[in-house]
């Protein structure tokens, strides 16, 4: 085995699992549960404008009325009365890394965030529990007029009108139960505005760390890429593992204006006690392009289906995703697309791997409305079963309402071929290494879409899963 592969096997997952003790002196923690009183307190804590307080209360009302869907993974073990909606460090958000409190700084240092910022990012936001603790954007990017700030600052500062115009318009609280919960208790997240014609050459990244046991993280990401602009945004997330359930119900709203392009990449590595009930949606206007790259490795339970609305003529989207469901995980992931404009096109390509009793479900929908003449869509979903105690299910749906559309769909479920393993073993690899190599190859269409550092991280995560790490 090569040294390179040895190094991969040696990677220690414990870096994600280090628990930093949060004491009362340094951290404020809201009591558990989701009541009107708690929502009012959060609103007060965050100095919300009046409209936002009303919005939160209305969302809570909707949350209490809506039911959980009957089609997804079981969430019975998620006791909402035992989840704290808001935990924050008593320190303010910092613009300089050296000013971030030592214990929080150590966590992000271990995860390599400041190093990544120095080497390959145009800006970084780091959220610890419910609030951003650090936010910075490179001077040259800021000089182009790019705004990258925390949601709270955007809500009350210079961009407050823009936030009011766009906030939860794409994902209204009525969308589903956890969108409503998000509307009620959201906290943290990032606001990005890329002005017309500006091309941000290197990516921006937000990293979300949920450190507190039994807590929820409800960050809101709002990105507006104006006409002709271009942005790559990366989202990373992790948490240490606890014996109690944690909840992530974030919301991502992306507006891609005329002829703009946005690539949104996610490597999700939440701990395996996390309920990841996240909502992501993009509205794509004329001639614009939305690209999703998504890797789901962590979480106990996931509901994650980024939706793209191809509103403008000649708009297009591409979704490339991989899900690795291991022991104890039920990851229900996929994508949704609505074709509204003429000459729109979409391409969805997913890979799903199930191992050690994990349940991986690919779920999608493609809707082509009557007006979407000359629409084209291609869906391809491949699932790989690595043993006979796991599940891999593929549940795509298509609703086509015009004849002037070209729809292609293919799905495959299978196993690693014995011949391929035999061939690699005949070249000197152990069976375990041969299987790991084949799985990495299976995931290659996704990893090649990621920046190098993240592709390496994804491959490391696959190898860790394969070696039972």
């Amino acid at each position, binding site marked *: 085995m090569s040294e390179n592969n040895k190094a991969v096997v040696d990677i220690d997952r414990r870096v994600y699992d280090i628990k930093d003790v949060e004491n009362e002196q340094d951290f404020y923690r809201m009591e558990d549960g989701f009541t009107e009183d708690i929502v009012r307190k959060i609103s007060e804590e965050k100095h919300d404008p009046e409209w936002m307080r009303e919005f939160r209360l209305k969302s809570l009302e909707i949350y209490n009325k809506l039911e959980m869907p009957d089609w997804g993974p079981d969430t019975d073990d998620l006791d909402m009365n035992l989840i704290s909606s808001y935990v924050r460090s008593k320190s303010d958000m910092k613009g300089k890394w050296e000013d971030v409190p030592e214990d929080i700084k150590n966590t992000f240092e271990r995860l390599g965030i400041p190093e990544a910022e120095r080497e390959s990012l145009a800006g970084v936001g780091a959220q610890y529990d419910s609030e951003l603790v650090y936010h910075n954007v490179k001077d040259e990017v800021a000089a182009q007029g790019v705004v990258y700030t925390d949601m709270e600052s955007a809500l009350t500062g210079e961009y407050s009108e823009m936030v009011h115009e766009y906030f939860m318009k794409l994902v209204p609280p009525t969308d589903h139960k956890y969108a409503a919960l998000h509307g009620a208790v959201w906290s943290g997240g990032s606001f990005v505005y890329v002005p017309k014609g500006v091309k941000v050459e290197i990516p921006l990244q937000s990293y979300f760390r949920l450190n507190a046991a039994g807590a929820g993280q409800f960050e809101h990401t709002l990105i507006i890429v104006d006409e002709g602009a271009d942005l790559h945004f990366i989202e990373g997330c992790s948490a240490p593992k606890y014996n109690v359930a944690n909840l992530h119900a974030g919301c991502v709203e992306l507006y891609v204006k005329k002829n703009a392009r946005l690539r949104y990449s996610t490597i999700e590595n939440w701990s395996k006690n996390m309920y990841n009930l996240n909502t992501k949606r993009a509205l794509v206007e004329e001639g614009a392009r939305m690209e999703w790259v998504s890797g789901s490795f962590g979480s106990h339970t996931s509901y994650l289906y980024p939706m793209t609305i191809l509103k403008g003529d000649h708009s297009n989207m591409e979704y490339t995703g991989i899900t690795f469901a291991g022991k104890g995980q039920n990851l229900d992931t996929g994508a949704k697309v609505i074709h509204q404009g003429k000459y729109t096109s979409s391409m969805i390509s997913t890979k799903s791997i199930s191992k050690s009793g994990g349940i991986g479900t690919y779920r999608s929908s493609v809707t082509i409305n009557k007006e979407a003449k000359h629409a084209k869509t291609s869906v391809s979903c491949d699932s790989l079963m690595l043993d006979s105690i796991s599940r891999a299910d593929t549940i795509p749906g298509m609703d086509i*309402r015009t004849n002037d559309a070209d729809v292609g769909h293919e799905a495959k479920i299978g196993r690693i071929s014995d011949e391929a393993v035999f061939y690699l073993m005949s070249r000197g690899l152990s069976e375990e290494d041969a299987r790991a190599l084949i799985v990495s190859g299976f995931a290659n269409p996704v990893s090649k879409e990621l920046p190098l550092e993240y592709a390496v991280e994804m491959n490391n995560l696959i190898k860790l899963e394969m070696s039972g790490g």
Partner: protein
Amino acid sequence: MSKVLKVNHLPALTYRFLKSNDSEIEIKDIEIKAEKTPVTGELPGGISVKDDATEEDIRKIFKSVNEKIAAKKLDIPGPNGDTMPLNDAQTVRTGMGVEIDSFMQEMNVPVTVISAEEGQKVSQPVMIRYELSDGDCVLGSQVIHAKKDSEITVIMEYVSEPDNGGFLGIQTRLLAEEGAKINLVKVQTISEKMVHFDDIGGVCDDKADIEAINMQLGAGHTWGGCRVTLLGDNCVFNNHTGYLCRHKQGYDMNYVADQMGKKTNSNMVFRGVLLDEAVKTFRGTLDFKAGSAGSVGDEQEDTLLLSPDVINRTMPVILCGEEDVDGRHGASIGQLGDDTLFYMESRGIDEESAKKLMIRARMESIARMIPDEAIIIRIQQYIRTIL
């Protein structure tokens, strides 16, 4: 009587907004006639027909395979949104589900049992013909039982005059014992003023084979379901469905291959055309259960859309709780390609004629598989008339 039946449950539920998790049949103010199965012509040798069987009789026929199904321990949980338990009470799981069983029993529909005796391989088909008059509201039920190493072919035709109104509901249950083969053909050309459902459920034991051909060409609204449990090792299910929906016709279908045995093989092909304001919902599921090692499954859907006002919903599902399987689905949905049209036009065929030619070609590619020349000709004539 008035009644609403909830049918065609997708084996694993999905987003509600797709409106495809199930379907409802509203039965309003009609007087149902529960009829014996109209077997026509001379009965081939080696085949027996018994009318007026009760559900208890049917349970006895399926007792041994149902015990075998119950003995298969599935240690792996079902898929998210699993609807399998909804139909646990069925004697034989069918595509449309338990509410059809309950309805049939409530209406005291007599079951006709058509059996091929052990070792008898009968190539001459058993002919069944439902001929509906105006206002007829008919329910029928039959069990086709191919005993060990036998073979039986059953051809069922549903016909009426073009303007007749009415209702036709059929349930056909199949048991192919070890080494047996059932060839089932259904051809439906009833009036567009009629409402129709056709529910099929089957079980294949070791090395058994169920071959189904289904042509759905008439009826104002049709619900069709077919679920075959591939219970034994090395058993096979092949299905070919052709459909043509025009005007405001609706076709709502649910096909499921439950692959339980080792080295089972399912192959489902759906070829259809939607015209005018037709609406179609297709649910097709390959369900590889734990223990179905070495099994393969393939479902292919090819739909031609020939009007801007059609609605096509497609739910191609693959469920898998077994490592050593190979499952595939492919769908191609759209209008006639420019290349095809250009080729036709270069041969002097105008666009309208080219479309008709392609419709006929698609339907005939399925119809040609029917082992009865007279029925093939009737299908061709029917298509020619309605186009």
